[in-house]
């Protein structure tokens, strides 16, 4: 029988990351987010000092009794234009970060992002149909300007398109023994291809709406508003919170489906619940921003390298970093003259991802 060796350090054996570590990681994330918030709200084509920005935010958001020494125009720019846009960027970035983390664990595929199983294609078709329909059928023009739940028809159709497509993909991929991950991926690919063809056809027929379609497909936060934020925020935040509560199941899923089942997980039910929640967050995010790439792919990878794969820390950190990154990228897009933010995330995200790939491969070879 082996003698029990004395432990070199009496670190606890169970219970996950220490309190110090959790506070450091999540506190750092919140701090980063606060810095990005003030910078992104304060910077723009109209110069409003950072101190004034901070005072306006403190007055309006925290209700602090501060003398209104600023112009009403400055307050409008900060509060009605920039703030909803920055908060939408944070919500979308956070939602995509969490959904990306979940899909990578669920599909056990490092290339997985929140759009992979049809959300992007479905939402795109919905949005493009919403943009084009009033042009092709003038009778619909009236409906297009009507706001439903405070948001436009394009957003509603994008949201519904994302959800319905994943529902379709999931149903088609479901066999007698449940849903196989490979089948799910391939079905998602096939269905996405069909929908992409439909999007291309609509673009061909769209005429003068092509610019609007293109901006949506590239992903843009230019249309952000308080009402759209009020629609998407509860959906994204609730899904993200429910996903965080499933951290233990996500960890166990990393062992593979058979081992997870032996550890008591109802695999088929869990796959359905995780797919539904992550798709809900993704669809709500996409509805108010278009298809912004690379955030949902890069953020989970970067964080896994930095803080490890334990989902109880990884999920909240993914939200914080995704939020900070997209808000910063959108600031860059605004300062670059208002290009779609999706172009910024692709330009910065893809080379960064390549670097990450080479770095982690080098680390594996060295080990």
């Amino acid at each position, binding site marked *: 029988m082996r003698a*029990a060796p004395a432990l070199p350090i009496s670190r606890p054996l169970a219970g*996950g990351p220490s309190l110090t570590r959790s506070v450091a990681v999540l506190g750092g994330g919140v701090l980063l987010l606060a810095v990005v918030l003030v910078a992104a709200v304060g910077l723009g084509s109209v110069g409003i000092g950072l101190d004034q920005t901070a005072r306006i935010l403190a007055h309006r958001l925290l209700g602090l009794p501060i003398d209104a020494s600023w112009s009403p125009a400055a307050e409008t720019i900060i509060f009605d234009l920039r703030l909803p846009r920055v908060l939408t960027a944070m919500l979308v970035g956070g939602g995509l970060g969490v959904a990306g983390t979940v899909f990578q664990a669920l599909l056990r595929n490092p290339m997985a992002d929140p759009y992979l199983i049809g959300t992007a294609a479905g939402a795109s078709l919905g949005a493009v149909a919403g943009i084009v329909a009033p042009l092709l059928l003038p009778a619909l023009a009236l409906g297009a300007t009507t706001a439903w739940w405070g948001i436009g028809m394009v957003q509603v159709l994008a949201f519904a398109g994302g959800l319905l497509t994943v529902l379709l993909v999931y149903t088609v991929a479901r066999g007698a023994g449940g849903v196989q991950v490979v089948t799910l991926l391939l079905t998602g690919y096939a269905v996405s291809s069909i929908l992409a063809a439909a999007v291309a056809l609509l673009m061909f027929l769209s005429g003068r709406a092509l610019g609007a379609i293109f901006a949506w497909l590239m992903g843009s936060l230019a249309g952000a508003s308080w009402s759209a934020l009020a629609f998407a925020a509860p959906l994204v935040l609730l899904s993200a919170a429910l996903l965080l509560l499933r951290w233990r199941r996500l960890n166990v899923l990393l062992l*593979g489906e*058979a081992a997870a*089942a*032996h*550890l008591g*997980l109802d695999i088929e039910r869990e796959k359905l619940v995780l797919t539904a929640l992550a798709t809900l967050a993704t669809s709500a995010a996409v509805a108010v921003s278009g298809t912004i790439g690379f955030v949902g792919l890069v953020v989970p990878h970067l964080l896994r390298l930095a803080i490890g794969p334990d989902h109880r820390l990884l999920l909240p950190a993914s939200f914080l970093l995704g939020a900070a990154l997209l808000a910063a990228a959108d600031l860059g897009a605004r300062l670059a003259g208002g290009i779609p933010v999706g172009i910024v995330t692709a330009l910065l995200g893809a080379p960064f991802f390549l670097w990450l790939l080479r770095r982690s491969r080098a680390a594996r070879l060295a080990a």
Partner: protein
Amino acid sequence: MTALVELSGVQFGYGSRRVLEGVDLTVQRGELVALLGANGSGKTTLLRLLAGTLRPDQGTIAIAGRPLGAWRRHELAQHVAVLPQQLDLPAGFRVAELVEMGRAPHARRLFGASAEDEAAVERALLDAGALDLAHRSIEELSGGERQRVLVAMALAQEPELLLLDEPTTHLDVAHQVALLASIARLRRSRQLTVLAVLHDLTLAAAFAPRVALVHDGRLLADGTPHEVLSQQRVRQVFGVATQMAWTADGRPHLVVELPSAAQDQALASPGRA
């Protein structure tokens, strides 16, 4: 002794291919039973049925007197653990974190671990001889160390029944013996009931007081290694001739007769023979 595992008339097929043709097997609490048989004979299927990941087409399976269908998944995982032959362990975790995943079916705390969880993880690491690995990261482990970590993970579930699915397949001979010796020891110290699918007949005979031979979807023989492992049965099941010797306590040692050079040629190029 009372029965922990009772199978009666169990039939199972994948689609139209029947694998089990009616298996009856009763395992008492505290027994160590080796399941032997050729590839494709249905022994791994039998294990999966017991783990609850497959459902029988016909017949009944009961664990601790309760039909398997009446167990909820996480309840079953509190009583039954599986040690696989290999597992793709996810990178980035420390050994202790991985072993803590064995506590998943018992988890009560929303984010942390309870005192019972901590105690169970430590006991599991100690019993599996992996306490010194606790703070190592998964990527640094050798094959034998990984297998000890998997044992610790299964023990952290604090099961009554431990199912082994060809656990020695990827180990060298010394680690095979070490693993089975530790399982035999744990069976006594933790009052475990163990059902193990094994390939090496001599190793099975050395460690299992009872062996069950699965052939063509049925139990061909069930008893002590001495009763079950005859030259004639081994030839019937595996299609090979053996030389046998017996230890003082009646456990067989098997040496498989290798084919002659001529047969060898025929085996190497079956199409042209």
